[in-house]
């Protein structure tokens, strides 16, 4: 009996922090949005089609070669929010993306993009989500995150954040990059 109580108490913090994954699939675009709410932290991922990403950067006046380079990446509109009462710190470089072949991938960060494009990349500074930030209670941010994966790729996301003096790691299974093009409704 005592063993069960102790086990339950040990599991309690994990259960309290586990979040529910909500998915919204749009058959017209073939895109599945993912949202998860944890106590004190929420995350939303919206897969972005390569045409859309290219259009956004083209509209910012970036050179065509840079615009074309973005097409090789799986991009997400990513929103992170501190919904708790303590400062929250995230570092996207700690996040892991494990594809179905078992390989682990990392984000291409804003800093890496800026380094690659140096003086030509000012617009990118604001559209990409900064790779490491501390959010005070109520703070939130949004921006693109980019993965060196082809369109339509599938992966499990292992993400982490620190709040107060605790670091949490969670997993979202079966996240999909946007498809190459919208599904054919006649197919």
């Amino acid at each position: 009996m005592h063993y069960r109580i102790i086990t339950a108490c040990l599991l309690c913090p994990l259960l309290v922090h586990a979040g529910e994954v909500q998915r919204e699939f749009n058959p017209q675009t073939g895109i599945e949005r993912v949202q998860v709410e944890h106590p004190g932290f929420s995350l939303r991922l919206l897969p972005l089609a390569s045409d859309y990403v290219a259009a956004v950067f083209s509209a910012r006046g970036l050179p065509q070669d840079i615009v074309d380079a973005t097409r090789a990446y799986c991009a997400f509109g990513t929103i992170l929010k501190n919904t708790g009462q303590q400062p929250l710190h995230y570092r996207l470089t700690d996040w892991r993306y494990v594809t179905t072949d078992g390989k682990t991938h990392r984000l291409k960060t804003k800093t890496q993009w800026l380094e690659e494009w140096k003086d030509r990349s000012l617009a990118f500074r604001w559209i990409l989500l900064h790779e490491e930030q501390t959010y005070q209670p109520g703070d939130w941010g949004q921006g693109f995150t980019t993965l060196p994966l082809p369109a339509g790729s599938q992966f499990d996301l292992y993400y982490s954040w620190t709040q107060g003096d605790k670091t949490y790691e969670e997993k979202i299974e079966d996240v999909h990059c946007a498809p190459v093009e919208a599904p054919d409704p006649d197919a």
Partner: protein
Amino acid sequence: MKKKSKTFTAHQSKHPTQMRNAFALVALMLAWLVPATTFAVLGHGLSRLPTPVAAPDFTLEDMDGKSYTLSSLRGKVVMVNFWATWCPPCREEIPSMETVYQALRNEDFIVLAINQWESPDHVFSYMGQLDVYPNFPILFDRDSSVSVAFGVQGLPTTLLIDKQGRVVYRAMGGRNFNHPEVRALIQQMIDTADSESP
């Protein structure tokens, strides 16, 4: 973690492939904009810095070429907002900034909305699309040097600068600045003597 699936219902019609792709692209654009606003209903909390820090000085021009220098506004409470037209929460918080500005503009309070990267022509046409036209100065930080000096890493970011030219409060992400608590906070900063801290 549990999974919960929800499927959109969508009308399916026979369009040529190009037309279908164009529709999909527009849908995607809207899909990115809409959840950004609905997911993050604007809160109102601003974080007080543990220690107020001197705001970096700057001089920027507005749409009419009029210059604004931060240090010349000493003695006023200044709300500095970093924004861009493509940023949904930036757009969403503009009406609340305008309301606060109209309510307090005659009481040693000013809002400076500092646009990042974009041209005055582009911003001017964007302003025409807004439900609430902002009357506070829109300044242009074309090379982002001012935002870098303030350590801004994402848009929108808003700072409250006290009468002594010190950054006292900060908010990352969109906010409702017309919330009674925010208005009371600004009013308190206005009512505080120049040499005091609220």
